[in-house]
């Protein structure tokens, strides 16, 4: 399972951070920290299945619908 974030859609709401703090965090400027690693699309490494619930919650709660779960 991977998580994909469309950083052009993402508005740095940070709601994903409360749902899945193991995966999402904000950097010191209050932006989604994946912005430090990727420009348009962030694709995670393979993630542990135990995170699925939390990631689904994050995808549901993202106001910009920027998060997708693959696999």
């Amino acid at each position, binding site marked *: 399972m991977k998580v994909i974030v469309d950083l052009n859609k993402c508005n740095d709401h940070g709601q994903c951070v409360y749902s899945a703090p193991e995966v999402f965090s904000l950097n010191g400027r209050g932006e989604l920290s994946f912005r430090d690693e990727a420009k348009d699309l962030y694709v995670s490494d393979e993630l542990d299945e135990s995170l699925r619930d939390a990631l689904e919650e994050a995808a549901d709660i993202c106001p910009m619908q920027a998060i997708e*779960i693959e696999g």
Partner: protein
Amino acid sequence: MSGVVVVGASLAGLRAADALARSGYSGGVTLIGDEPHQPYNRPPLSKEALLEEQEFDAIRLRSSAKPGAVSLLTGVGAVSADLGRGLLFLSDGRELAFEGLVAATGLRPRALGIPKPSGGVVVLRTYEDLLRLRAELAGVRDVAIIGAGFIGCELAASLTQLGYRVSVIAPEDVPMLRPLGEELGGALMRHHLQAGVGFGLSRLPVAVEGGERPERVVCNDGSSFDAQLVIEAVGSSANVEWLEGNGLDLSDGVLCDERLRFGGDGRFLAAGDVARFPNLAFDSIPRRVEHWEMAVDTGRYAGKALGRLLTSGEESPAFTPMPAFWSDQFELRIQSFGMPGLVTDPGQIRVLEGDLDGEVVVGYHREDTLVGVVLVGFPQNHMKYRTAVSESLAAGVAPA
């Protein structure tokens, strides 16, 4: 076979249906909505979708259930329900039997009962409303927005950015008074004024004058505001008529307990803007919460709780979410956590960081408990203040 019916195919209904389908419940989930569309997202209607002329695809909500796990019926409404017999009656004449029901029928905007022309006066809740608003804007220079709540203020910002001359007319003396209080409402008003928004506050509109289309809005103090288009953003009423006749309290939405159940039965739950429920993290008073994230949280909770009850007979723990709300106006991101609107005493509303005319964090206290915070800017501090509210609530609130 009678499965679960979720009535209202918008944010809360979709999240409830998805959660139910994911819960392992196998009795079948039907999501029905009276709009002609697949579920879509409303917040962009007053912001990106208006500013950037986005089309429907940009605001469609994605389902997280497996394809086929939820049957979606659009363009059909629930006309009535018989909870005792487990039957739902649809606008196309069909009857659906159910063993569980989620009410997620949301709100519809109110319109003022004042004289007005037949054209050029609109509201904004649906995608059709947005299309009508866009069409009505053609040839318009001055727009009057009646109502100074969040939606009125977001529209004022977006339309000003699009080059229209906007006046906001409302009875309060600062915008967003009830949720934010006098001082922060006043600071945001100064920001709007600087950006070119006009305000006609502390007065009530008594008529929209004109021929077939508006020419001006006239107020009870004799003042008037030029407008070739008028938007009414004066609040909403809950879509509950379809539940009448079941002995429920439907006076302001669907009255629920702290597990979102209504009618005293765990098989019936409400979610989203229509649900009036007590959040025991704050107190035991049932309230409706018109926040996007609450629609997601209540929807997910209702779907999970119903799935658990119907598959294993188990009840779920009380639902005690942290409310969160955002609004975008000009370049400002306004973010709230908790329930700032509970605090009306100005002495209990204090600046915690920054200052009112720039980035600011405002705290709302009930006795010694921080029950809400509102941040304008300071994105890096969201987590810190959200945590501060939940810790203060946990320390300060005796269970009801």
